[in-house]
């Protein structure tokens, strides 16, 4: 026989003023299974807890029901109290007679009757409670940071500085990301490379950081503390150990193609490093451009390489590495206006460029050596028009959201035009000016007041060429007139959007994404860097558009979460998780798609079954599939239990039996 003890709390007068606690303690004695009951002024106080402990000992209680405030308040307290005894903390039940009884009712008789019911529900449930033990999973003390932009670099450095090993994975030949392409950063106007490259060097020289460039995630298995990540190292045809980074191969390579880093505004060889400060500074061969791979003849680079580092037989390699935690810092892509914005010429005007193109044009090491020259004829543009919100805040052609950084970088660009080109005119077409950041508004005002940038509030409806000029037709909604501007160059502030492969990547990791394909944080306010998958964290623009300061801050936060996880040797998981009765499981797999954590998989069993059927031998062996719950991944929501028609899945702590007992108790 189970022995239940009932402890009724007065909560000062919070409960006792509307509920007759003495009466409750008295009637509880007659409830099935109850062998002891009492009441006390403050059950959660030390004397109250001592009273519970003593009663457990004296009356050999094996279940405890505390009738007090909400379990959200003191369930943890009383569980802890039970752990101090021989009882398992999960043998506790709380009857919420304060928030859901004494505080919401005024008729003392009715409230007392209800409290009695609540206690009898809890007693009925408690009788079905079983001891639950948290399971322990080991934490593998190595982190993976996916994406080598500023977010990834910052996260990797922060984790590595605390002493943990970090692998920094980058799919391009060099880390650096978008920030490496940017010329100056707002609002301070310091040189982007000057602040980024030292961090890149730090990362490459850090004893705890391994940079894995030209590589991508192939597959992710496992769970928090124990992710097995398979990485595809793409064939680069250059042995990174032998290569000295002398750069001779790139100089001599006869094949040329558009440089991605320079946004196609200059050429690069087929064997190349994307930019001079690349890290690792090892060139790779772009097989689509390489003369040898395309025609079977050339191999100049191999002939001149003194280090013998060129290997044309290089193949993709797969390696699987175990990590305790993962930071996703895969960044963003830029909205391509060319197939959407017909009114801006569908990309047919070479002098209509994007903000990133402009960054390269204005950069001292860019294709024009920092002189602003328009791409079509290399002339210095005198009138430059900037159009904001291209693809942002435009539900018909682009995205509904605001890309957050465009107002600031457009102000920066316009300032630079005014600064670098004599007698120039910079005109910005905008919808709103959004400058929520430290010194941002000041920066914008400086553009207007000191640099004389013209801001026109309105959309541009058409751009066309006339007599070698770009004609920008738009409206000024403040003056209420049509505006027609003749310009030499137009810069579009195109939207930041999710990487094109973001959804596929999210599925690989088991994380979720929003309607714009940005990865979902676990809670928009309170868990901004966690994902729903334990042990996987987000940093930077992969979670949503951000500027550099926000990205770096989030990277630091993600690193702190990783370090907190890795600092433990093992972690205990909440024992309120789903449990499979394999004897009942028919392997239909209906639990698998409803699990938000990918915690359920099917495994194959082989067993002998009794019984003969006309066409099979008696005692034959059959294989069948059954569900298996990963204790590390399951968070205990119980959605699977409802989709399991055979009740083969049950949720410990909230079992079908327990809930039915509560229903039946009334």
């Amino acid at each position, binding site marked *: 026989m189970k022995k239940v003890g009932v402890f009724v709390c007065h909560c000062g007068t919070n409960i006792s003023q509307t509920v007759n606690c003495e009466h409750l303690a008295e*009637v509880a004695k007659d409830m099935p299974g109850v062998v002891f009951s009492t009441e006390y002024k403050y059950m959660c106080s030390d004397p109250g807890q001592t009273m519970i402990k003593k009663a457990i000992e004296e009356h050999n209680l094996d279940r405890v029901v505390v009738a007090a405030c*909400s*379990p*959200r*308040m003191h369930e943890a307290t009383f569980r802890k109290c039970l752990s101090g005894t021989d009882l398992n903390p999960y043998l506790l039940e709380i009857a*919420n007679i*304060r*928030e*859901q009884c004494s*505080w*919401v*009712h*005024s*008729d003392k008789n*009715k*409230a007392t*009757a*209800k409290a*009695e*019911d*609540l206690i*009898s*529900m809890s007693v009925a449930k408690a009788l079905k409670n079983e001891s639950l033990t948290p399971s322990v999973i080991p934490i593998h003390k190595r982190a993976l940071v996916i994406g080598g932009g500023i977010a990834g670099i910052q996260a990797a450095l922060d984790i590595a500085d605390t002493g943990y090993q970090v692998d920094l994975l980058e799919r391009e030949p060099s880390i650096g990301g978008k920030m490496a392409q940017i010329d100056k950063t707002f609002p301070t106007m310091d040189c982007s490379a000057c602040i980024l490259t030292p961090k890149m060097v730090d990362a490459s020289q850090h004893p705890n950081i391994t940079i894995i460039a030209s590589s991508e995630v192939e597959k992710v298995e496992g769970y928090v503390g124990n992710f097995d990540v398979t990485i595809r190292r793409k064939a680069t045809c250059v042995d990174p150990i032998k290569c000295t980074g002398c750069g001779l191969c790139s100089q001599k390579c006869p094949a040329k193609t558009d440089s991605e880093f320079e946004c196609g505004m200059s050429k690069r060889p087929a064997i190349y490093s994307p930019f001079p400060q690349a890290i690792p500074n090892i060139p790779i061969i772009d097989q689509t451009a390489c003369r040898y791979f395309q025609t079977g003849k050339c191999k100049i680079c191999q002939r001149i390489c003194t280090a013998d580092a060129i290997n044309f037989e290089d193949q993709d390699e797969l390696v699987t590495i175990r990590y305790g935690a993962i930071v996703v810092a895969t960044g963003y892509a830029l909205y391509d206006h060319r197939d959407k914005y017909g009114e801006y010429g569908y990309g047919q005007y070479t002098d209509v460029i994007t903000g990133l193109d402009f960054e390269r044009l204005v950069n001292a090491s860019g294709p024009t050596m920092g002189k602003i020259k328009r791409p079509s004829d290399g002339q210095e543009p005198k009138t430059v028009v900037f159009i904001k919100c291209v693809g942002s805040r435009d539900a018909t052609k682009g995205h509904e959201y605001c890309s957050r950084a465009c107002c600031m970088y457009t102000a920066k660009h316009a300032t630079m035009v005014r600064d670098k080109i004599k007698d120039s005119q910079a005109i910005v077409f905008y919808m709103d000016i959004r400058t929520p950041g430290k010194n941002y508004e000041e920066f914008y005002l400086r553009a207007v007041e000191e640099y004389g940038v013209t801001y026109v509030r309105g959309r541009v409806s058409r751009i066309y060429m006339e007599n070698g000029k770009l004609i920008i037709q738009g409206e000024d909604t403040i003056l209420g007139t049509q505006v027609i501007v003749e310009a030499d160059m137009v810069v579009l502030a195109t939207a930041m959007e999710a990487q094109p492969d973001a959804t596929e990547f999210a599925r690989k990791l088991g994380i*979720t994404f929003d309607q714009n394909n940005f990865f*979902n944080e676990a809670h928009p306010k309170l868990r901004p860097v966690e994902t*729903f998958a334990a042990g996987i964290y987000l940093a930077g623009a992969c979670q949503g558009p951000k500027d550099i300061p926000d990205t770096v801050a989030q990277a630091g936060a993600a690193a702190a979460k990783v370090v907190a996880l890795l600092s433990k040797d093992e972690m205990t998981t909440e024992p*309120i998780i789903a449990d499979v009765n394999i004897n009942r499981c028919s392997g239909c797999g209906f639990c698998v798609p*409803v699990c*938000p954590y990918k915690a359920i998989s099917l495994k194959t069993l082989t067993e002998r079954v009794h019984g003969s059927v006309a066409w099979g031998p008696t005692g034959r062996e059959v294989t069948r599939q059954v569900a298996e719950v990963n204790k590390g991944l399951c*968070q*205990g*929501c*119980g*959605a699977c*239990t*409802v*989709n399991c028609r055979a009740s083969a899945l049950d*949720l410990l702590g*909230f079992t*079908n039996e327990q*809930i*039915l007992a*509560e*229903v*039946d108790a*009334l």
Partner: protein
Amino acid sequence: MTNQPLADNPNTSGQEWDPKILVFACQYCTYAGADLAGLSRLQYPTTTRVIRVPCSGRTNPQFVIRAFQKGFDGVLVAGCHPGDCHFATGNYFTRRRYLLMTRLMEFVGMDPRRFRVCWISGSEGPKFQQVVTELTDAIRPLGPNQKLRDIEPSVIGGISR
């Protein structure tokens, strides 16, 4: 008191009859909302009972039918608003399942006023109060539920006297 028949006939019991309502509340939203109603001292009928479940996705329709079998006069299944589920997607499945369940119950003659599904967030203490009060008020004129009810085992077949 507990063991008395759950619902006396409203015509014979003299005082005003309150229907017994069972609420299945997800612990992250609706249960928290009910606690908030308590913190704000919002009064509602004493005949409301709440069963805490981790997520509305845990509320098996079988529990609901069982509640009606056991003599509850109304059942409320409540959870986080779609999109706000602590477990990301649980309530989306709840919504699908209960869209069907409500239709099925009505099809077999269960008064739709007796069975509700509602999203009540942790900040919606007043909504919790409002929904259970409305449910109670809507059921009161209907009288005790007899449909699907199984308080006494009925004997089928057999000599009847």
